[in-house]
């Protein structure tokens, strides 16, 4: 009986940390509403406060409709979420081992280009070509991700610095690669790759519905869901996953317990790179069908916010990524329907992260009593 109460208590604690996350999102939406009102110059000039308030309503409604209101909207949400999930897991797994992976962008670029290269180099049926190209993407990202890991293990170079630098190196390297004969599209002078053959593209998720070319979501989403499962399984079930968690929470204790912490540093960055590499492969082979210089966009950085929001847990990261993906997809609809610019999405995301980073603020605003705050995600500071 006592045991039951304790279990219940722990469950409640976990719920309250989730509640805090939800309250943070809600707080962001409310502040966002104020921003919509005060930037609704047309209505305010006419003194039409009610009109401005109704703009908020229509903007948020458009967000919902644009992200989940139709099959097409859902497909868009899925499509935006896919790389966010994979990169979110990338950042999260590094967080778990106590490392801060800011290099998901670079790893994504590396993975995408490797996947593309394998896609070109092969001529075969899709069911052979696609898995191999995806695998190549993971390997490419992992190799690129291992670099900051090795640098840290060998020389102590901080991964925050090295991953940022490697992002730039990857970006310029790809600029050069896309100008080589191997990659550059024949009739183009700008850095853009050849198209992946139809066989090499990731099959569309809703391909079974005829005549709906607008449903762009691809099976990269399945890959992403598998990645979340693998991440969960790895953390919970494997010895190395246990080592990651111990090392991330207390590096000294991991050393004391006989874990090979240098190996763990390299491994965790490799795994992080692998997941980001998958995101690159999914974007290149699925969403675009070719590579341009900026196919990684801002995804690697959004992933940091996602991992923070999801507290690096597998499910948390998944839902946070879907939320961000939904905002992305709904934002376009909002811009069309309600004159509220899509930039509001960036503001909303920033607000969410800010409220997540300031749990005390959220607690004060909502006057919640529960005291259990998980201090969010941590990584070892500069000294270590």
């Amino acid at each position, binding site marked *: 009986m006592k045991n039951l109460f*304790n279990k219940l208590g722990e469950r409640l604690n976990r719920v309250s940390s989730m509640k805090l996350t939800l309250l943070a999102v809600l707080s962001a939406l409310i502040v966002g509403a104020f921003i919509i009102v005060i930037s609704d110059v047309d209505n305010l000039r006419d003194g039409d406060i009610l009109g401005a308030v109704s703009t908020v309503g229509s903007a948020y409604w458009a967000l919902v409709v644009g992200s989940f209101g139709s099959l097409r909207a859902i497909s868009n949400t899925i499509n935006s979420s896919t790389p966010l999930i994979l990169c979110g897991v990338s950042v999260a797994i590094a967080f778990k081992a106590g490392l801060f992976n800011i290099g998901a962008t670079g790893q994504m670029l590396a993975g995408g280009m490797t996947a593309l290269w394998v896609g070109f180099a092969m001529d075969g049926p899709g069911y052979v070509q696609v898995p191999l190209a995806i695998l190549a993407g993971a390997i490419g990202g992992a190799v690129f991700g291992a670099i900051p890991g090795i640098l840290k293990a060998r020389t102590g170079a901080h991964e925050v610095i090295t991953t940022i630098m490697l992002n730039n190196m990857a970006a310029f390297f790809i600029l050069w690669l896309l100008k080589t004969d191997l990659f550059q599209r024949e009739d183009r002078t700008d850095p853009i790759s050849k198209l992946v053959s139809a066989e090499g593209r990731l099959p569309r998720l809703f391909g079974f519905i005829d005549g709906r070319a607008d449903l762009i979501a691809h099976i990269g989403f399945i890959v992403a869901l598998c990645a979340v499962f693998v991440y969960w399984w790895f953390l919970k079930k494997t*010895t190395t996953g*246990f080592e990651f968690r111990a090392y991330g929470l207390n590096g000294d*204790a991991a050393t*004391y*317990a006989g874990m090979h912490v240098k190996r763990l540093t390299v491994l965790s960055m490799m795994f992080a790179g692998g997941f980001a590499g998958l995101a690159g492969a999914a974007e290149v082979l699925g969403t675009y069908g070719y590579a341009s210089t900026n196919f990684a966009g801002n995804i690697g950085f959004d992933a940091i916010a996602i991992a923070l929001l999801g507290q690096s847990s597998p499910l948390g990261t998944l839902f946070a990524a879907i939320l961000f993906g939904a905002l992305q997809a709904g934002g376009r609809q909002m811009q069309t329907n309600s004159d509220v610019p899509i930039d509001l999405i960036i503001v909303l995301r920033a607000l969410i992260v800010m409220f997540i980073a300031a749990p005390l603020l959220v607690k004060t605003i909502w006057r919640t009593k529960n005291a259990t705050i998980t201090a969010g995600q941590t990584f070892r500071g500069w000294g270590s």
Partner: protein
Amino acid sequence: MKLELRGITKSFPGVVANDNVNLELNTGEVLSLIGENGAGKSTLMSVLYGMYKPDEGEIVIDGTPLVFASPADAIAAGIGMVHQHFMLVPVFTVAENVVLGVEPTGALGKLNIDEARRMVREISDKYNLDLDPDAVIEDLPVGVQQRVEIVKVLLRDAKVVVFDEPTAVLTPREIIEFFEIVKTLVSAGRGVVFITHKLKEALNIADRIAVLRRGKVVGEADPKTATESQIAEMMVGRPVQLTVEKSSAQAGDVVLKVTDLTVLDADGRTHVESVSFEVHAGEIVGIAGVQGNGQTELVEALTGLRKATSGVIALDGKDLTHSNPRERHQMGMAHIPEDRQRQGLVGGLSVAENLVLTRYHDDQFSHGVIVDWDAANAKAETLITEYDIRTPNKETGVGTLSGGNQQKVIVARELSRDLRLTIAAQPTRGVDVGSIEYIHSRIVKERDAGTAVLIVSTELEEVMALSDRLLVMYRGKVVAELDPKKVTPMEVGLYMAGSRPDSAVSA
């Protein structure tokens, strides 16, 4: 001045840290606040020092109820606190540290360092503290640093000085000097609150002893009449065994053999200098010494956490000088580390996970790369019962347990397998009386089972009570090998301080 705490209640989610606590203190007396870890001593003092706001109750000074919103209010009301961990800037001088925050300034806010020096000298002379205002903190021994903290408090005109576990970091000699200072403070009309878990010291210095248990004052004791075991019983709530019960050692073969071990750090400083000793099966060898004389580095070298610069470490005749911690672990070496929160445990992981922290890779707990959590959890259940670990359940985060129970988790993990050698550093630091008793009996049991045991502790009493042979370390060298039954703590204390008493009997 008369300080009263009336009906102080402070609760945190799930625990009532202070439950209707009433205390009073007059200037000119020493009140010793004694209790186990987690009894609520620190919370109570944090309330007094303005760091926590009590849920109920009030602080009354000379009949006036006061509300402390911050330590600044408490300081203004004449309350000073000397923390266990000093709050000093290591590269500043004594005078600079003392005036930090209340600097005497001249025109345009220029620091008047001469005035600061004068103030330090004045207080130092008045209370016989013997401080040089121009000495740099990092060059000073811990005992002197503590006196700097005392000057800081006195300069802010504290009528009541609270000492939080002040003797934990001092040598026996420094402790005597510290008590002299306390007496001077009291005779100069200040009040002293002395927080400790060491019964002897409380009996020695206090005018009154208040015992705290589970957030409540369970009674006061008069040091003139009370005995150690009476107070211990009040603290724990049941009779406790204060001495270590053990038969004489049945020493067997040499298990650990250390030859000419020297350990330098990355900056080339020598921490351990050509140390040689042996530990036999079935005996407990203790290493005494003031903190910072190379014991930490010695243990780290023995357990593989630090590279030995030269020398040989052999276990059962096998050279393991260059083996890593895991290899040593697998050869039957157990290590209870000196800092359980930094090294011994991962606070964010559960009790069960911590119980396999050094063993998850054993065939017993994993198949290939997959951890067998069923086996680990079953083992955890057994160990929790066997070692009497007080935890809500095995999934509870180990960081939420009390110090004593955290230490029991480590002891359970490290001793619950076949061992050749157990190395225990500060095995009972910050652990309550009840758990100390238990941990000591476990270590003796391990010895009687034929394990070689090496105990490193700065608590002289503990290391003397447990050891069959006693080594003393001073500045990285083993300066004496003694028979703990034939020497007095004072004599060992002299070796610890680096002098060589002729009267001491060498074993």
